[in-house]
């Protein structure tokens, strides 16, 4: 960990796309929610009236973040599982549990994108608009949200299928890397707390 991680780690293209989607999702939170709402609060405080409909737009931004970011939870194995029993299992049983878990997630993802499609299609056919002064056509924010969900479902289905191929090729490590249960060390690393690696700012002397 002595060399700083490259911005884009070397990874297959589906993982890479998911990561870039996650960056977009993060930007939605920082700029679309944080900055936008702050601007609205400040202008409201100074000029006694809000400038932007941040209340409405930031909601769409959160939805975009969720849609675009969900695939990244699959590739980074962030969906919480109660895997405390798993360690005690022999490898085959553990692998079976991992596969089952991955397919369960895929089912949920597919169901979500299917029913979200119905909501989107309904907004489309009824030409639904938001009730605010902005009169946003609902197809816009729901469309972004739905495209993200579609990618999420694609990844959630792709990974267990790839994992089965690796299992057939007796590639145990590759299997674990794809859908194996997230080990505690991995989890801490992900929490962005690998503090040994990063240069600490000098504590000021009192």
């Amino acid at each position, binding site marked *: 960990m002595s060399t700083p991680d490259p911005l884009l780690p070397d990874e297959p293209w589906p993982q890479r796309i998911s990561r870039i989607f996650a960056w977009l999702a993060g930007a939605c939170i920082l700029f679309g929610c944080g900055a936008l709402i702050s601007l609205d609060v400040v202008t409201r405080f100074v000029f006694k009236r809000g400038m932007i409909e941040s209340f409405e737009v930031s909601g769409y931004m959160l939805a975009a973040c969720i849609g675009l970011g969900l695939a990244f939870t699959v590739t980074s194995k962030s969906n919480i599982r109660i895997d405390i029993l798993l360690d005690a299992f022999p490898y085959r049983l553990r692998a079976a549990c991992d596969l089952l878990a991955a397919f369960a997630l895929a089912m949920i993802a597919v169901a979500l994108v299917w029913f979200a499609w119905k909501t*989107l299609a309904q907004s489309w056919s009824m030409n639904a608009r938001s009730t605010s002064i902005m009169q946003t056509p609902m197809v816009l924010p729901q469309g972004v949200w739905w495209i993200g969900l579609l990618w999420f479902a694609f990844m959630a289905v792709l990974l267990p299928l790839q994992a089965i191929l690796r299992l057939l090729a007796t590639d145990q490590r590759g299997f674990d890397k794809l859908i194996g249960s997230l080990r505690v060390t991995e989890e801490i690393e992900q929490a962005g707390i690998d503090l040994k690696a990063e240069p600490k700012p000098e*504590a000021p002397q009192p």
Partner: protein
Amino acid sequence: MIGTAFSLLIGLMALSLPVAAALGLMGYILSQKYAFFPLTGALGELAWNTSNDFILIAAPMFIMMGELMHRSGMSERLFSALAPWFARIPGRLIHTNITASAIFAATSGSSVATAATIGTVAIPNMEKGGYNPPLFLGSIAAGGTLGILIPPSINMIIYAVLTDTSVAKLYAAGFIPGFMLAGLFSLTVFAAAIWRPGLAGPKADTAGLWPQRIAGLKHLVPPLGLFLIVVGSIYIGIATPTEAAALGLMATLGLVAANGQLTLPVLVRAFEGTVRTTCMIMLIIIAAFFLNFVMVSIGLVKAVTDSVLSLGLPPLAMLLAIIAFYLVLGCFMETLSMMIATTPVVVPVITAMGYSPIWWGIIFVILMEAALITPPVGLNLYVVQSVRGRGPFSDLCIGALPFVGAMIIMIGILIAFPDIALWLPSMLQSSK
């Protein structure tokens, strides 16, 4: 019906299915089995409404604040400013850990961020100062949990959305218990230091403390300012809790920039961390809302409430049973998923017994705090251990125990004197 639902949940979870998938599948199975008409059609609308909920927007912003906070240099300065104040009290730096955590908690909505940030600054001092590792590390892990009790709090936001209560009132309710619990932690350390002076390290040179104390005061300004922004602005009336979170996020970004740490890699990694946590939680929330919709539609929530009430137990006994249940469950389950999965069923029972949902929210958050530091699944223990980087993990498990005791005492105090939590929110109500 209750039996089926309960065993279904246990079964799906024990198979180590992702929590969101387990909740979603359970909703689907219950709807197929008990509903008169298919309920799954509501999923799309439900998912959309949850995805753009204005109150929930506060959660990712606090998560991002947590991701950025340890780059701001705020905690290092806070720690060195507080240390001289406790130099003569038995337990010295351990009290600094707790106080710094409490102050940091008042600017941060996350326990992990609090423990990680304070841990990074404090742990190098542990060996230098000759402190007893379990007690020292335990105080950091436990102090970190204050992050979700002292407002702002990610957990309170999600609880508020799930139970349809007011975030502002929950924040107000958490305030006094939060600082009381910090006091109890300090008292625990003080008692330990008196009982076994060796635990708290040798006495250090205490000459020239006052100039240091005074000089350090200016470092309290950034956390105080941040607190005024993310909590104060709500009660002054210039911002809603979500707007306050947005202001806090921008202010934190400013602090990181002022510390010279605002670079593209830092920002991108913060984005990744935020999105991972946010989407994971939101998927569970969507699944939980769907399950809740199914459970209410088929009458399961009412059935659970009725059957609990028909036991005829006094409310207090029932309450204690629920608390015991959470203390055990908290050893094995990640806290946020535990909270989201159980709130829709447990809170109706609590309110049916005549308790205030705001008051229970505070007790609930303290139970979550206990869950964060009870092994084998206690995220804060792992966070502090990873910051430490070596030594036995058992140090943390042992060191956290006295603080779990302090939490249980705090819950007892809140049951005996509910006004400790409810007084501030009631002031809020009468002033408006």
